[in-house]
């Protein structure tokens, strides 16, 4: 009886201690690994509990070449025939013994894919994997003041076991606790990218940033792939005038002036005071030899002013010159 009476407060103390520790640990977890913690506490109902893209190929990295290896993994998954060695000349910077983020994005464009930097959220990364897209992540495996940047490709996850599966370095299937990944991922501000064929839209793509990504592909010189991407974009967001401008520009670049005109006229009907649409339509008509019509449109653009004023006035000069000739 006495023993029991003594035991009770001891037990209570123990319980209290465990409770406090758990509370502290929980607090620590949400401080150190806020994204993992919030995913654990409030799992989105529409996110699959686990997914793994087993078909994603693996290219073991040679010294310092995790950039080309990670990129080749994603490109090959998107049916681009390429090896890490081919990509060394496109992303590797010898004096830095590594590859830069910007160049990882840019190099994917050179192979006709649209590259997209994800929003810095663990949830978005998982959503991309669940939708069938492997994700390149930039981790910092250094300790303290030593930076040690490393690219890996996330190909799977399991929310119940809290694990992430990656193609990383020389490991074909690295199993990393999600909170450990969050810890090494944080220093890159949660940098992650996907590269997808132009007829696809990433699961987490935001309208304006996705459009800018397609414009980047067009800028890099791949008008054919960009055209497919704009058309796909317009199926999802038909009201976007800038996407119509992009689609028309890819037609214009290919010399398909009638197609460019058709797209721009439809865009103009939706947004009659778009300087860019007016200017580009005027240019297309003028290139078709219809300079009088073109002049009327470009005059409207001149009257509207704005950031493209000098480009517009150049177009006007060109049209006037063609009329005089």
């Amino acid at each position: 009886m006495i023993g029991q009476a003594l035991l009770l407060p001891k037990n209570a103390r123990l319980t209290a201690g465990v409770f406090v520790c758990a509370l502290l640990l929980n607090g620590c977890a949400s401080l150190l690994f806020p994204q993992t913690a919030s995913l654990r506490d409030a799992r989105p109902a529409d996110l699959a509990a686990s997914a793994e893209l087993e078909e994603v190929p693996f290219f073991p990295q040679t010294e310092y070449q995790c950039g080309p290896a990670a990129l080749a993994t994603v490109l090959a998954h998107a049916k681009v025939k390429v090896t890490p060695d081919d990509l060394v000349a496109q992303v590797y910077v010898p004096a830095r013994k590594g590859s830069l983020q910007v160049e990882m994005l840019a190099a994917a464009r050179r192979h006709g894919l649209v590259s997209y930097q994800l929003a810095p959220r663990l949830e978005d990364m998982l959503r991309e994997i669940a939708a069938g897209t492997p994700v390149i992540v930039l981790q910092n495996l250094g300790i303290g003041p030593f930076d040690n940047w490393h690219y890996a490709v996330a190909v799977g996850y399991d929310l119940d076991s809290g694990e992430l599966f990656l193609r990383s370095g020389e490991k074909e299937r690295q199993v990393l606790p999600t909170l450990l990944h969050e810890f090494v991922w944080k220093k890159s501000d949660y940098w992650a990218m996907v590269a997808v064929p132009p007829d696809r839209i990433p699961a987490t793509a935001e309208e304006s940033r996705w459009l800018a990504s397609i414009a980047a592909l067009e800028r890099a010189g791949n008008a054919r792939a960009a055209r497919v991407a704009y058309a796909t974009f317009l199926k999802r967001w038909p009201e976007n005038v800038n996407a119509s401008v992009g689609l028309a520009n890819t037609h214009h670049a290919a010399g398909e002036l009638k197609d460019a005109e058709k797209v721009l006229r439809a865009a103009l009907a939706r947004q009659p005071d778009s300087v860019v649409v007016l200017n580009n339509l005027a240019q297309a008509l003028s290139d078709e030899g219809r300079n009088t019509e073109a002049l009327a449109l470009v005059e409207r653009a001149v009257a509207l002013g704005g950031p493209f004023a000098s480009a517009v006035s150049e177009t006007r000069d060109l049209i006037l010159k063609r009329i005089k000739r």
Partner: protein
Amino acid sequence: MTSVMKRALCNLLIVLMAWTPFQMAYAGVISTDQAVTASAQADRAAVLSVISRSDVSGQLQALGLDAATAKDRVAAMTDEEVRSLNGQLQAVPAGGDGWVIAAVILIGVLIWYFWFRR
């Protein structure tokens, strides 16, 4: 023509040749890239872009790339990307060698712990 003038002309031509690949493919049309990132001063941005492209290309060459490779690589970037890299090539992260340093430090710490702490 004096030799000074000749040299000046040659320099100008070299600079112009270096810039040519970065210029827009066709005149008159406002590019999608510009339309999407319309800033208050689109022309100024376009001029700056040409300059910073040749800057970044030069900086990449200084880090061990040949001229043609550097130019091709810069050509695949957007104006914004070029701006973000300009002058930052030594500072931005460069993903490279994976576990090596972390592993070395970890092994060092473990050895220290087991030899000196026990």
